[in-house]
């Protein structure tokens, strides 16, 4: 048997997936608490022990892992204009699977430096200026960053005419300092791929060790990437296909978690109707957004606040009932609903989280009245015609009503300016394998694709 071991060191759980490469099927999945404080291997062994070992023992041909343990990949991004290079830098960091703690624009201030010191990011991403454009901000910010009391990995992805000099300045205080292509080489052009690769490289060479994940590397081949990056990679493969194996086409993945809700879309998002003008920064084809205030457990209070009346209207509960339920989750974040009422609350919360997260992910259309009549202006991606929405994440997996929760992603005619999918077909990542398949893509893309098509089921 050609078994491959795929591991996701999550913030809470270490999840293992064992795959038979020849039969293209899952041999087993299991999870156990992540043990970052002691030895990361303990949790992994505990998870592995749950899967019955064959008589001849495991013979893993490959052992790969991704990680969001120890706070995930924490990044701070900085650019020149808030809406331009600072936003491009933020998107590059998100696309690399990072948690973005802060985004700074213009010249860094002493207060900004204090924030950097206090939040201890894993990587700084420094952008600013289009190629041949503004040089001062990149150089000044590099000088400024030398005043930091801590040494950090820095990725420079700004004006190419100044990035070499900026890197020289940064090297006086920071290590490693890596130069990537400009995240915005020309105005309105987003080019995040090179920065994304540079971030991943720094993650592999430096972050893995500083987070205590290197202990696992003696057993594993290596920790390949941050978990969100693995999911995005799986999504990309599933959308585009590989070789002669066809993909599913444009799609969206919604990952509802205890602390955040992530949305990945693999779609161009061009206007679906004629005569619509596109404004604002272009969106990457593979786009990821993370909503830190939309989670089912750790951020359930923030979710109730964000959904406002909508939640109460849906549930028909009083403020006290909701507060009482939130109290229960505060006591035990991994509480499984005990009664039908509790289950109803969970479904409502899930639908709100999906609804708001997708709302923030997709683009908007607005009517602009000009002296020549109404014109339509679109910001972001138009996903109204998107055919496929895939749900994943613990909350959806253990529920029979995943479909109802995912309905939150659907276009609402009363909010017609928000360009959500109108008639998508829903799928569920039933075995929770997307991150694992993102890893498997590294060694056997075709198998990973076929397995996803098999295990991601239509609802």
């Amino acid at each position, binding site marked *: 048997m050609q078994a491959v071991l795929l591991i996701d060191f999550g913030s809470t759980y270490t999840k293992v997936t064992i795959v038979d490469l020849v039969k293209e099927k899952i041999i087993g999945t299991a999870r156990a608490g992540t043990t970052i404080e002691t030895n990361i291997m303990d949790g992994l062994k505990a998870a592995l022990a749950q899967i019955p070992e064959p008589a001849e023992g495991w013979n893993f041909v490959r052992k790969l892992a991704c990680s969001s343990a120890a706070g995930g990949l924490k990044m701070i991004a900085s650019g*020149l204009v808030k809406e331009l290079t600072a936003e491009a830098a933020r998107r590059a960091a998100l696309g690399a699977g990072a948690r973005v703690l802060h985004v700074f624009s213009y010249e860094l201030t002493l207060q900004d430096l204090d924030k950097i010191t206090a939040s201890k990011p894993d990587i700084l991403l420094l952008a600013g200026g289009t190629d041949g454009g503004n040089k001062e901000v990149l150089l000044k910010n590099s000088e400024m960053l030398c005043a930091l009391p801590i040494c950090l990995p820095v990725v420079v992805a700004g004006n190419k005419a100044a990035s070499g000099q900026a890197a020289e300045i940064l090297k006086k205080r920071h290590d490693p300092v890596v130069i990537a292509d400009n995240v915005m080489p020309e105005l*309105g052009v987003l080019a995040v791929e090179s920065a994304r690769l540079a971030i991943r490289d720094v993650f592999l060479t430096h972050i893995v060790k500083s987070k205590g994940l290197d202990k696992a590397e003696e057993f594993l081949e290596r920790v390949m990437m941050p978990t969100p990056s693995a999911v995005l990679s799986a999504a990309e493969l599933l959308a585009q296909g590989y070789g002669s194996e066809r993909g599913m086409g444009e799609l969206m993945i919604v990952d509802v978690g205890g602390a955040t809700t992530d949305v990945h879309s693999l779609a161009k998002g061009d206007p679906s109707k004629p005569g619509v003008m596109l404004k604002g920064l272009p969106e990457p084809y593979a786009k990821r957004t993370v909503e830190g205030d939309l989670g089912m457990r750790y951020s359930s209070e923030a979710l109730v606040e964000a959904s406002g009346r909508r939640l109460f209207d849906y549930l028909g509960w009083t403020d006290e009932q909701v507060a009482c339920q939130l109290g229960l989750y505060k006591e035990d974040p991994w509480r499984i609903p005990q009664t039908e009422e509790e289950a109803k609350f969970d479904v409502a919360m899930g639908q709100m989280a999906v609804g708001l997260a997708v709302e923030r992910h997709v683009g908007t259309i607005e009517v602009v009245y000009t002296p020549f009549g109404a014109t339509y202006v679109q910001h972001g991606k138009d996903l109204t015609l998107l055919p496929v929405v895939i749900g994943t994440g613990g909350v959806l997996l253990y529920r029979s009503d995943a479909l109802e929760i995912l309905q939150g992603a659907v276009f609402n005619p009363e909010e017609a300016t928000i360009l959500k999918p109108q008639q998508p077909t829903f799928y569920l990542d039933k075995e929770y394998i997307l991150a694992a398949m993102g890893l498997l893509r590294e060694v056997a893309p075709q198998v990973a694709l076929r397995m996803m098509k098999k295990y991601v089921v239509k609802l």
Partner: protein
Amino acid sequence: MEQKVLVLGVIGSDVHAVGNRILDYAFTQAGFKVINIGVLATQEEFIQAAIETNADAILVSSLYGHGEMDCRGLREKCQETGIGNILMYVGGNLVCGKQDFEAVKERFLAMGFDRVYPPGTMTETPIADLRKDLGLTAD
């Protein structure tokens, strides 16, 4: 010599895209690097584009007659954002009705524009002016 950078756009709720394309083509052919922010451009978009690209000039078009409203305060915002001395041109059908162009020109010069062009100006004129104002001519 380093290419001079121009930010070009149609300001306000104005959707006249054809002239914008022609200007883009003409200035590019004349050797400038054109950052075209297109139609429906706000003052902020002109300024942000100019900051990020370290532009040498802002070229504002307005065809629909509301130019005076749309352009007011642009110079002040440039000053506030640190690019107060940037070269600014404006042209098109800047105002409604048949107004005396000299009076219109005065108003826009007072607003802080360096050059103001009447309807029907050919592209050669601003190109020649840019060369002069940016120190690209031989003399």
